[in-house]
């Protein structure tokens, strides 16, 4: 079937929902497509808070938030975008409250705020209370609130429609084509549908599922990012992937930084607060890349718990009231998934693959740009984790993922509405679904004839975790590059057991694995080329940051023999790069 709309939003997390809300308010005929149900989106798992310099408990300023974001990102942040982020964070949080978000409250009834890693007062002096929160389910409340508002404003949802291709009119983006819609696979019955629109937003989230230990949902397979890459749009700064310090050992489920924001400490086998040696000023509230590296150092030095590969997160001294009122969910996670009682014993933790700083390159209007000169792909937008605007640079600060998706999801909706008013709807494209139908049919035709999806997926997850993790070097990355190539070849003959049309998750997982492999290829290429250490990209063979050579963004273009890399400059407006100490 062919559905004509004016705007299409792909993905129903925070960025997609806010964009859809803006479009609905402007009266633009909009469809939201999600491969899940909207309330299942990964925004809902964000726990700790959303930073905005409201100053409800102590003095705060948005330019301090901007500075922290730039420094936290090891100066690879585009400062024009960071300014937008920190400034508009304030009005977006207030607007969320007006929409009904149940923030925790101060004694005088204002939005309550707490400390979070890397967020400081007066340009790095000491931690500041900036994170607005709803217990430790802030993301859940953001997702629910935005979905509620979309219902109120009559947004049209296509639930369990998985987007499997992008459509362009007048050629591919590199040939000057404009976005014309998407092809979607209806999970319930396996039918392909085309959705035509003037403006298309990618809001498909991250791709942490390429790692073995990850906080990411099973559905985070980078669909929108990979589809852009396959249509010749470069991917920006893919080598920067954040490992969050406090994942549950073995399974990666996140214990929020809020635990440390409320005063939780990290301990090694000797019972030492080892962060004293790595970040004496901010201690456990240093940025995540630094804390994760410190944990690896402790483990390597034999000071992991019992000599093993994990450490302790200790919240016992916070007392029952703080733990139960402000950290109920993560307390529950420790009980359920580890059988540990945080009121009485420390919780074993290890770094977990968490967040992609890189992704689809965009400008501050959430428009997708396709080269180092900033040439816009007309009608194509991206926001949230799948996009790289770049407000996170080489390392994202805690809560800034939510700030990013709110601020730039909102901007995307507004810009899409403006754009949709200026162009005609694309004409139907003959046989638009045929290329992707052929791909999917090819997978189905190999039923039970070759290697399974899970074999290849496990090998990918292992090599990415072991070779492209917290610490990297030339040898590890070269081996990873070769392995990913091999896995891509093998994926070309992957086999599934289910040939049906109804709710065929076997087929969808095989297809999603192809996305992960493409993105892994781009990540490894960027990491191999970048011979410096910056933020989350830590090369043991090049341990120093090298601004003279590497203060620039990577752009990875897909090519027949692997990615081609180009680079573009970083926008530096207010804060000159300095050594990064905390």
């Amino acid at each position, binding site marked *: 079937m062919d559905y004509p709309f004016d705007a299409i939003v792909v993905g129903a997390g925070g960025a997609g929902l806010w964009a859809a809300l803006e479009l609905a308010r402007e009266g633009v005929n909009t469809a939201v497509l999600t491969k*899940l*149900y909207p*309330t*299942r*989106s*990964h925004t*809902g*798992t964000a726990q700790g808070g959303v930073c905005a310099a409201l100053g409800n408990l102590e003095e705060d300023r948005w330019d301090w938030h901007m500075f922290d974001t730039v420094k936290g990102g090891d100066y690879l942040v585009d400062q024009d975008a960071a300014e937008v982020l920190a400034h508009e964070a304030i009005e977006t949080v*207030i607007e969320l*409250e*007006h*929409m*009904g978000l*149940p*923030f*925790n*409250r*101060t*004694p*005088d*009834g*204002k*939005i309550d705020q707490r400390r979070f890693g890397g967020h400081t007062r007066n340009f790095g002096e000491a931690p500041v209370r900036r994170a607005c929160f*709803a*217990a430790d*389910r802030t993301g*859940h409340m953001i997702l*629910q609130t935005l979905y*509620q*508002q979309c*219902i*109120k404003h009559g947004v049209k949802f296509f*639930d369990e429609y998985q987007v499997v291709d992008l459509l362009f009119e007048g050629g591919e983006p590199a040939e000057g084509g404009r976005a014309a819609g998407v092809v979607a696979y209806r999970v*319930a019955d396996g039918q392909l549908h085309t959705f035509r629109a003037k403006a298309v937003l990618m809001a498909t989230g991250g791709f942490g599922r390429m790692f073995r230990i990850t906080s990411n*949902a*099973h559905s985070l397979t980078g669909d929108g990012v990979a589809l852009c890459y396959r249509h010749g749009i470069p991917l920006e700064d893919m080598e920067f992937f954040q490992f969050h310090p406090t994942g549950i050992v073995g*399974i990666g*489920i996140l214990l929020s930084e809020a635990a440390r924001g409320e005063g939780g400490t990290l301990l090694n086998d000797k019972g030492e607060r080892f962060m004293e040696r790595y970040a004496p000023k901010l201690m456990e509230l240093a940025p995540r890349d630094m804390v994760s590296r410190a944990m690896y150092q402790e483990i390597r030095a034999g000071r992991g718990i019992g000599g093993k590969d994990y450490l302790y997160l200790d919240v016992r001294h916070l007392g029952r009231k703080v733990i139960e009122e402000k950290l109920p*969910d993560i307390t*529950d*996670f420790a009980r*359920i*998934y*580890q*059988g540990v009682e945080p009121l009485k014993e420390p919780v074993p933790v290890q770094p977990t693959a968490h967040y992609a700083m890189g992704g689809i390159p965009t400008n501050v209007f959430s428009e997708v740009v396709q080269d180092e000169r900033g040439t816009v792909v007309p009608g194509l937008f991206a926001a949230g984790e799948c996009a790289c605007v770049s407000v996170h640079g080489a390392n994202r600060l805690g809560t800034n993922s939510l700030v990013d998706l709110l601020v730039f999801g909102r901007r995307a909706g507004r810009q899409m509405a403006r754009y949709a008013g200026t162009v005609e709807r694309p004409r139907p494209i003959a046989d638009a679904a045929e290329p992707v139908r052929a791909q999917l049919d090819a997978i189905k035709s190999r*039923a*039970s004839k070759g290697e*399974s999806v*899970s074999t290849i997926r496990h090998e990918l997850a292992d090599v990415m975790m072991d070779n492209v993790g917290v610490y990297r070097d030339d040898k590890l990355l070269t081996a990873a590059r070769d392995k990913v190539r091999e896995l891509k070849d093998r994926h070309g003959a992957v086999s*599934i*057991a*289910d*040939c*049906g*049309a*109804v*709710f*065929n*998750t*076997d087929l969808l997982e095989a297809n999603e694995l192809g996305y992960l492999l493409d993105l892994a290829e781009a990540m490894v290429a960027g990491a191999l080329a970048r011979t410096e250490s910056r933020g989350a990209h830590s090369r043991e063979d090049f341990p120093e940051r090298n601004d003279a050579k590497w203060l620039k963004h990577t752009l990875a273009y897909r090519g027949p023999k692997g990615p081609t890399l180009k680079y573009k400059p970083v926008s530096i407006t207010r804060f000159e790069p300095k050594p990064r100490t905390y």
Partner: protein
Amino acid sequence: MNVDLRILRYDPEPAKPALAAGEPAAGAAELTGLPSTPPKPHWVTYKVEADPMDRVLDLLIKVKAEQDGSLSFRRSCGHGICGSDAMLINSRNRLACRIRVDQLGKKISVAPLPGLPVVKDLVVDMSGFFGKYRSVKPYLINDQPEPERERLQSVKDRARYDDTTKCILCAACTTACPSFWARPEYVGPAAIVQAHRFIFDSRDEGADERLEILADEDGVWRCRTIFNCVDACPRGINITKAILEVSSAIVGRRG
């Protein structure tokens, strides 16, 4: 440890090629009932090597990876927040990602949520469930001009509706409710929880509209305080209490 995992399988397309071959995938499963025509749900038992700390979701993923890729189930976040994987596990509604093997023992049975149409295997049609959610106007209603900053709300007023903000719309409660099984038109506990979240929010002005909807014959009066919903809720919400508070508000409004 070895676990016998019984799964209620259902395939609406029994004639498709993979099944026509007649052989289950390598290493599979002793079949305790074969699909006949027209297709009917049937139990299949899988032997799975499990750790006591594994969740049922881990076992389902393992079966799909190692024994039969055609097994369909929903899952996403894997830690009890997204609400995708509610199912009937050892005769109680549970999230598969939140219930461990050591809580269930060596014989585990898994079936789709009761009372909703089955699409395939453990996947049910959620459209009716979300339709009921929408019917209670689950959004803040307040037509006053917005202040420049946040609306103020006291800590006490915020606490008044805290419990019902936890709902993740997994449908475990509604599909555990005998009143819902007996009368599928009943709006159900999940929708009432969502209404409660706004009715008792001091910033909301839509209580009358929602109470009117819930005073309907398929509204709150269908609740027989059986407490199945409370047992089923993976978020620990005191659902029956919320329903009774909504009922009292209706009575109070009439009084």
